[in-house]
């Protein structure tokens, strides 16, 4: 079974968790990222994720392998949604099982933090006033430092 998956349909959270049950593990930590109804003071109607799958799948597996190695956890897996999503849906789920709880918490935190900054995934928010913006790029614009004076992004 693959540890990192991308899906365009709702994540089956029960199945996800049950696949990680392991007789040697006494602790299981799970993180779910949900679609919320606002961002930076603006009402959000829905989200759209664009994913470059070939690299996202590769990098996702790499992050999970790092988590197992660094924290010595027994199982680590994650699923990320793509496409259009409605408020309250789970956009991402991370699950980590280990003999004891501390490593499970730490590894789970590591995985979600790395997934957010390393995977080629982009989030477009659709607002109540009809506008739609790419998250992070819009933030750059609001804080007034585009276009960048520098020659190339670093």
């Amino acid at each position, binding site marked *: 079974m693959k540890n990192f998956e991308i899906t365009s349909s709702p994540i089956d959270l029960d199945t996800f968790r049950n696949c990680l049950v392991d007789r040697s593990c006494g602790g299981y930590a799970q993180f779910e*990222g949900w679609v919320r109804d606002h961002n930076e003071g603006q009402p959000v109607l829905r989200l759209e*994720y*664009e*994913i*470059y799958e*070939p*690299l*996202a799948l*590769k*990098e996702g597996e790499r992050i999970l392998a790092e988590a197992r190695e660094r924290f010595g956890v027994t199982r680590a897996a994650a699923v*990320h949604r793509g496409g259009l999503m409605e408020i309250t849906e789970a*956009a*991402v789920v991370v699950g980590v099982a280990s003999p004891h709880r501390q490593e499970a918490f730490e590894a789970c935190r590591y995985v*979600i933090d790395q*997934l*957010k*900054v*390393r*995977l*080629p*995934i*982009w*989030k*477009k928010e659709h607002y109540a006033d009809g506008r739609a913006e*790419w*998250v*992070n*790029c819009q933030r*750059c614009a609001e804080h007034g*430092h*585009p*276009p*960048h004076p*520098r*020659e*190339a*992004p*670093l």
Partner: protein
Amino acid sequence: MQVTVRYFAAFREATGLETETVDSGAPSTGALFEECRQRHPGLVAWDASLVAINDEMVQWDSPVSDGDEVLFFPPVAGG
């Protein structure tokens, strides 16, 4: 050399292109981005933009070779 450039998300919208083939003498991915920005003024060098070559993440000073497929990623926002 000839390379294929692919634009994603906000970069695709800024250039109006998913992909283009370019003749370039750019020594690095960063220099190639700058060349593309000259042709597509809407392309902005955001902080935290990422770059990959042939489906492997690389750096902005990584070399580019003939036949490479270079992927320009605007700041990511997964999760």
